[in-house]
């Protein structure tokens, strides 16, 4: 599992984006479990990111994926954070963002 944590600057202060679990790879794509954590540690939220196989190759490493995702999450930070928190609080499961041909996101 990649230990790199990317820094994200947001209206709520500095956050770190890192992987919470090794990437799960299958023929349909790659599933990442990510954690957004405020630099001072007072907030942390996990969410998932499914990237369809048509957008990335199977051998792409986790650090590259994280680097590609980071600016997008920085831009969509409020929506991502709010949705991730709401999903965990009310549905007790992690939010899953899906990127495919119809919604390419940062890919």
């Amino acid at each position: 599992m990649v230990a790199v944590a990317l820094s994200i600057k947001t209206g709520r202060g500095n956050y770190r984006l890192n992987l919470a679990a090794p990437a799960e790879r299958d023929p349909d794509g790659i599933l990442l479990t990510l954690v957004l954590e405020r630099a001072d540690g007072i907030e942390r939220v996990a969410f998932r990111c499914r990237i369809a196989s048509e957008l990335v190759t199977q051998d792409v490493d986790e650090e590259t994926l994280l680097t590609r995702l980071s600016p997008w999450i920085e831009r969509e930070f409020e929506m991502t954070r709010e949705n991730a928190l709401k999903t965990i609080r009310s549905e007790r499961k992690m939010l899953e963002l899906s990127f495919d041909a119809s919604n390419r996101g940062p890919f």
Partner: protein
Amino acid sequence: MSLQLIRPDINLDFVGKRHFFVILSTAINIAAILLIVFKGLNYGVDFVGGSVVQVQFTNTTNADSIRRSLGGLDLGEITVQDFGSGGHSYLLRFEKVKNIAGLGPTLEAELAKTFGTNDVKVVRVESVGAKVGSDLRRRGFFAVIVATIFMGIFIAIQFRHVSWSFGTGAVIALIHDVLVVTGALVIAQLQFDLTTLAALLTVIGYSVHDTIIVSDRIREDASKRRREPIATIMNRAINETLSRTILTSGTAIMVLIALLIFGGPILRPSAFTLLVGFITGTYSSVYIAGPVVLFWEGRTKVGSLSSRAA
């Protein structure tokens, strides 16, 4: 065919039983105050400060195992609560964490020793400082007081041509409702956080709404029946609005029962607050607000209310 739950000519003696219900409500209110003072509300992190951590486990576990595995960390008192996923998701509450920074990774590393690195994930950490918590608590209390007083002033002004006592009745009814709901929250030990506070403020709004309906009918009837005693006018007004009261409160209560049962642990405290509050609010409009007006007006001569309403 129209929906008719209550016969239009119904004449239940609500006002005649007011002494019993006033004594009952007073006793409940005293009990609620004692509960609030001596047992206290189960304040959420919003109001006392601390951290809430949500942890997900791949395999089923229990609260004791989690507590045991965190025993080596100096994290103060920990509350572990099953988050309704059949032992897969738990909420941990820490009231006094010395070092909040790094709490998530620290917990994850400690839990991983017992449950396995890939079988445990800290999926949420939310923290509120102790000072912010006490500040929010003070502001929340202030919001309830201000809402109650302003509702009373609003009703007093609206009904000033009939009697200023309607405002007093509304304020006393609202204080009654807030005390009953808060007392019920103490007994149930449900978490009192910002969402529950919002529900409590909603109860104030709902209760006053119900009081206005009854008071407005009293004003209307008082102008039509100038020679009737106030108690008779009041009892008739309550009976005339009874069908509407039962229908509107009943439908709202049905929704709240569904929310309480199926809403999950996050919505449970606010659904419970609203449910108890709506029932109490309906009751207080009949048995608290009315008797206060009656007590006030009872000192004046018969028909005085009617003549002012005209």
